[in-house]
């Protein structure tokens, strides 16, 4: 009852000073909107990264040759003992390992009948699609036999297909990779961006032996990268330690020698990146919180002005029998109403801004649960009470005689 009355008084008083109320609320609007955008986008980024880990395969280990160390001189990555084709077979024996594939890369001009496109070319073996959990949309992946016989076959990523063939079915058609003609036997399903932001679908995959002997024209026995999939995400650490001990044994390293290869866990890489993103959004969130604080101070400021302006009114109310708590409630409700109006508008603005950001920048998922609305509302109520209390108490404690005499 008293509260409803205070609410009516508050609305009336705020409407009397429309411009002032709007500007004061603007502080809260900006603060709440900024806070909401950072929270929502932070959450979106987290989800996006999680989704990327899922597209990459979360239980994947990459092995690259390490640096050589001779008499204190460290060579760069790859200067050490190269990884051998035999290493691939050996690692497959590990218990916690499901798939092992060699991966060699180059970049080549790919030419169809009338279009051409420069794209990364990847040479690997049959298990690559399974290891990356990457379904073939049309046609098929190449077989082990095709790899062994260096068959002139290739599988295209979605982007390459679009650029060379548009929407027509490329399976069965011919392309030229550098000088080598080969038949397209399959097209991979779209996979989207990698965690590093590159287009994973811009790729052409050849059998490992085909790439080595027919495109790169060399018959070397080493591979640039070995990719390993553990039997499950939980077995990742186990797989990693098995891989390390197998390679150390094969490379005949003694206990006091460093690894001459590097093992990278993809999930860890992504998590590192995720941490960077989280630090950034965390900083933004702090800035947003500060702007909300400034908004709150704006409310306190304007409420203090309002109390001073209305000293006489307060005196009249006290003289005719208002108690301290009546006056306190009146001004506190006014501050909270101001803040909540700002909070609601800020929540709307924040939702709009987050949607826009997400549409313009990378399409990270934005989901608006009612939780965000409740958060925006709750935060603004808290700001109103926190910053409205001091002015309201000041009003309630006025001496009625002094207040009545105030000019």
């Amino acid at each position, binding site marked *: 009852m008293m509260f409803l009355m205070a609410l009516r008084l508050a609305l009336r008083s705020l409407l009397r000073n429309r411009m002032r109320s709007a500007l004061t609320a603007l502080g809260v609007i900006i603060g709440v909107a900024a806070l909401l955008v950072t929270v929502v986008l932070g959450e979106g980024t987290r989800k996006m990264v999680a989704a990327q880990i899922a597209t990459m395969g979360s239980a994947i280990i990459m092995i690259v040759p390490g640096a050589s160390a001779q008499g204190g001189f460290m060579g760069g990555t790859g200067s050490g003992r190269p990884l051998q084709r035999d290493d691939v077979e050996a690692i497959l024996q590990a218990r916690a390992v499901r798939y092992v594939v060699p991966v060699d890369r180059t970049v080549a001009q790919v030419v169809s009948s009338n279009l051409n496109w420069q794209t990364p070319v990847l040479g690997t073996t049959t298990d690559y699609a399974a290891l990356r959990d990457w379904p073939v949309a049309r046609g098929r992946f190449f077989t082990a036999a095709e790899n062994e016989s260096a068959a002139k076959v290739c599988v295209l990523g979605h982007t390459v297909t679009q650029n060379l063939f548009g929407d027509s079915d490329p399976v069965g058609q011919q392309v030229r990779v550098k000088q080598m003609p080969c038949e397209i036997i399959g097209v991979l399903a779209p996979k989207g961006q990698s965690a590093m932001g590159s287009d994973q679908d811009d790729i052409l995959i050849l059998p490992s032996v085909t790439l080595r002997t027919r495109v790169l024209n060399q018959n070397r026995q080493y591979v640039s990268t070995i990719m390993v999939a553990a039997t499950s995400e939980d077995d990742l650490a186990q797989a990693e330690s098995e891989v390390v001990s197998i390679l150390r044994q094969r490379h005949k390293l003694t206990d006091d020698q460093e690894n001459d290869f590097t093992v990278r866990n993809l999930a860890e890489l992504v998590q590192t990146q995720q941490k960077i993103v989280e630090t950034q959004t965390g900083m933004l969130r702090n800035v947003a919180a500060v702007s909300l604080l400034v908004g709150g101070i704006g409310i306190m400021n304007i409420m203090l002005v309002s109390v001073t302006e209305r000293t006489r009114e307060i005196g009249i109310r006290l*003289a*005719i029998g208002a*108690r301290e708590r009546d006056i306190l409630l009146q001004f506190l409700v006014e501050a909270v109403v101001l803040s909540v109006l700002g909070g609601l508008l800020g929540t709307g603005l924040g939702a709009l801004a987050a949607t826009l950001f997400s549409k313009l920048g990378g399409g990270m998922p934005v989901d608006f649960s009612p939780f965000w609305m409740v958060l925006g509302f709750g935060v603004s109520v808290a700001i109103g009470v926190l910053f409205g209390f001091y002015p309201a108490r000041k009003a309630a404690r006025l001496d009625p005689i002094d207040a*009545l005499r105030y000019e």
Partner: protein
Amino acid sequence: MGDAVPSSEPLLRLSKITKVYTRGDLAVPALRGLDLQIDSGEFVAVMGPSGSGKSTLMNLIGCLDRPTSGSYFLQGRDVAQLDRDALAQVRLRTLGFVFQGFNLLSRTTALENVELPLLYAGMRSMERAERARESLARVGLAERAGHTPNQLSGGQQQRVAIARALVTKPMMLLADEPTGNLDSRTSLEVMALLQELNAEGLTVLLVTHEPDIAAFAGRLLLVKDGRLRADERRPPHSAKQALAEWRDTEEEDR
């Protein structure tokens, strides 16, 4: 109330009231041991030069302030040392205030101004509006209920203020220079209204520095240097009669 018969216990009784204001190290006595009794149904005028302590006396009687020492019984209850909220309740239930500057809330209708005390009394909105309309009708402003103070003349504003003071049916009306901002004719109208209300049994305490206005009260108190210097009862002039005479003179002038 009707024809008030003085009961054994007076409406208010002040004894040995002192009030000392401290300004820094300086103690300024405003009231120096004042004794006063007012019975229910009296019409009392308080006069005195400025700085005499009459405003302080009004603030104390009006429960807007507390005495430094002494006791103040209002309807037999000692209110001298009540806390702020309890004093607010006394102001709300027992007293009504009328000020020199009217002190209505601006941009707020007459009706809402009159409703204000009832709001703090926690009355329902229907009953509130009804009581406020009755009170406005009593001061002859029923048809002005929807007007805001700046749409009303000074005399009308003061009548709205009186309606607001009456709406809680108080025991006593405290009027601090109620005619100070009004011309002579409107002053007479306001005094006629106060006399009417007094005739119906309302106790009225009036502060004024105009002897003409004080003459409408049946009892005159003179305060000087924080003490009561004179307390005399005499037959009051009739404001209604004065108003009629005033009208006659105006017609002769025409």
